[in-house]
């Protein structure tokens, strides 16, 4: 009997191993890696700043790479031994135990061996790192928040250095020269006059292009809505039960999040090559983007419905489609309309940007004028866009207030 229990306990602990390793990864390894990444970034940014302001060229690593490794690891070790680091803050841990200088120092010396926690994890439920084991300090959850002003903490100083060096590097990388705002000003005098003398005879053309842009958004939304509605039922977790349903759900959601991460501008570039520059390309770009965006919004709305009516209608013996028609749709019709309106609003705004990269409409014409510095013409189109944005703001706010 005793051996049986021992075996069971062994099996139990074996089964726990993946969970333990995962925990060690999440609590010990990833925060430390985050700290190292942060410090490496600070190193690169300070180097860039220094080289830019001292020597006038950009270099993200003035010293050989192993210098960086040594400095980053050393600072990381001191940081984690004497303060709550960024990574520790993220997982809400702090060092506790006898925190005298000697043990902190020992911890700092042993800190670089933190990946060994992955090796101890299978045997030790706490997955202690060498530093924790030998310096007898442990990472425990933060219980009591003690207050120290930022300038008394290492983290505060590191954050300050990070912010300053980021700004410095940004100035270098983007070649900021505020002086040019002054010296270049005389070049602009010519076109300030051009900007403030719009060519009003282009107003008719501008209005037509504006109309075209609005129609681009309408067409993209109108075609995206039916498809998105159909897909949204398939992408709603509470409707897709069973293994096949779950598979469809997962695949749709994955495709959705991938497609959405591709910017509408990129889609417009692709479609402008496919079907040629013009508003059709813009419609297609907005269309693709609207489908996945609306699908997500709709599906989330379906997932948030009150399950009570669904239960009640199912209890009357209705089939799937009847449940959909009488329990789900009445609950979602208004939010769906509201989302559609919202998406149309976004589409009109995006239509101008999409137009610029070959999607036609007012954006395409505007960018042509701007590239040839035809400001009197561009100003007319810009004023029209401003008016359109205002009208849209007003209209969609009113309509959505009515729907809500």
């Amino acid at each position, binding site marked *: 009997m005793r051996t049986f229990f021992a075996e069971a306990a062994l099996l139990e602990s074996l089964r726990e191993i993946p969970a333990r390793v995962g925990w060690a990864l999440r609590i010990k390894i990833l925060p430390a890696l985050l700290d190292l990444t942060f410090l490496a970034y600070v190193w690169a940014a300070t180097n860039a700043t220094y080289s830019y302001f001292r020597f006038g060229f950009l270099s993200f690593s003035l010293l050989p790479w192993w210098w960086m490794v040594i400095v980053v690891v050393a600072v990381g070790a001191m940081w984690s031994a004497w303060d709550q680091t960024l990574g520790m803050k993220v997982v809400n841990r702090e060092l506790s135990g006898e925190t005298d200088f000697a043990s902190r120092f020992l911890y700092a010396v042993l800190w670089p061996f933190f990946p060994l926690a992955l090796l101890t994890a299978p045997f030790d439920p706490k997955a202690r790192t060498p530093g924790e084991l030998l310096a007898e300090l442990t990472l425990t959850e933060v219980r009591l928040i003690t207050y120290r002003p930022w300038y008394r903490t290492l983290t505060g100083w590191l954050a300050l250095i990070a912010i300053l060096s980021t*700004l410095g590097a*940004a*100035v270098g*990388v*983007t*070649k*900021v*020269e505020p002086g*040019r*705002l002054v010296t*270049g*000003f005389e*070049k*602009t005098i010519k*076109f300030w006059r051009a900007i403030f003398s719009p060519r009003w005879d282009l107003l*008719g*053309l501008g209005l*037509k*292009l504006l*109309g*075209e842009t609005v*129609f*681009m958004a*309408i*067409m993209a939304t*109108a075609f995206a809505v039916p498809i998105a509605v159909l897909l949204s039922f398939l992408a709603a977790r509470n409707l897709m039960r069973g293994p096949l349903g779950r598979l469809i759900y997962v695949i749709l959601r994955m495709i959705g999040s991938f497609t959405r*991460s*591709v*910017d509408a*501008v*990129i889609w417009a*570039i*692709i*479609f402008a*090559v*496919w*079907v*040629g520059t*013009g*508003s*059709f390309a*813009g*419609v*297609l770009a907005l269309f693709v983007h609207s489908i996945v965006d609306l699908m997500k919004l709709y599906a989330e709305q379906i997932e948030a419905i009150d399950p009570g009516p669904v239960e009640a209608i199912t209890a009357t013996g209705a089939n799937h489609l009847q449940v959909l028609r009488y329990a789900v749709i009445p609950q979602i019709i208004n939010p769906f309309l509201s989302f559609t309106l919202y998406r149309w609003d976004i589409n009109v705004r995006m239509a101008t*940007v999409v137009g*610029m*990269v070959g999607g*036609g409409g007012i*954006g395409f*014409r*505007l*960018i042509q004028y*701007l*590239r040839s510095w035809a*400001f009197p013409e*561009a100003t007319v189109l*810009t004023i029209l*866009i401003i008016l359109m*944005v*205002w009208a849209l703001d007003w209209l969609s706010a009113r309509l959505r207030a009515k729907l809500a």
Partner: protein
Amino acid sequence: MKFLRVRLLSFILDLCLWAYLLYGGFTLHYLNTRWRPWRPEEKFVAPELSPLGWALVVLGILEVVLFTRAFGPSLGQRIFGVRLVGEGGGKPSFSQRWLYFFASHLALFLLWFDPERPFYERVSRLRLAPLPEPGTEGPGPRWYFTTHGLSAFLFLGLTLALGWRLTEIDLRSFVGKASKSLRIWRGLINPDFRYLFVPDPRIKLSFIDGLVQSLYMALLATIAGTAVAFPLSFLGARNIAARGPIGWLVYSLTRGFFNVFRAVESTYWAAIFAIWVGFGPFAGSMALFIHTIAALGKLFSEQVEHIDPGPVEAVTATGANLLQVVRYAVVPQVIPQFLAFTIYRWDINLRMATVVALVGGGGIGRLIFEYKDDLQWQLVGGVIILFMITVWIMDYVSGWVRERIV
């Protein structure tokens, strides 16, 4: 007065609807018969009509509008939620509706005597009443048999048909030219990372350089924009700034600035700054900076207007002045939202940084557009994939951070 407003506005709405239907119909006809592709430059273009003809067209529209208003709720009446009913609230009879139709021709001359109950309504013994609550009356006719349903249907149908022609939707070219798009897809599938670290000798920029440039352009614009938008947002918040006439002036000016500058495309600014400070990332980040001020300023000040007024009252009661009230009662309430908006803005700025490159803004967008113009699809594919991965990571991280702080 309320009913007069409803009558007037719904009438204007009806007028716009039918004018749009007529004009749209003309345009559609022309697009179908005369100009195959839509060319906005061409003079429109209504049919050439004599003045008499035009008068007849206008009259025709007016007649249609009056007719739809007399027979069943027109779209304008439906949107404002009113309909015609008899004296006792019953259904109007056929003859009453005809009487109403004819009498309303005189509306312009006789409306002003009694706005509450105009002449034509009294003659036909009808009145305008709010629509009944849904469910209080039995089922009416199917929506597509009602006047407003029919008009809405016409409106939608014409809009879609017109949009189809205007935006030149051409499914044949979509399918037929699919082979043309293959080269992009091929470029995206086996991208060329030749210049990932090594600068392209022609553009003198490697992919990573471009990406870092774009990231920092967005970052700088966001940080500097936030620094300016933060103090301005309090001036643009009604509950803080709008005290006394000077306060109202400051508030209105700030809000006006936000509203105008937010609506101006950042490419417009980029073009200006490209001349002003020369081509390159500095011009791009200046353009994004100006746009960020206005966009963030508006979001910030709306947030300030939505704070809990309790702490403001309490801190005021301790004898603090306005600045102290803002610092101790307003700022702590809005900081998390401000941070979330700022991070969100960084995301947007990174995307806009690519578009700004079109007019000389620099950054990764420049690589995309240069390679695209040279038809080097594998290089375009490489840049796009790098950019997509970055945007994806940024989206993920910023979503996670925003969730944590709000």
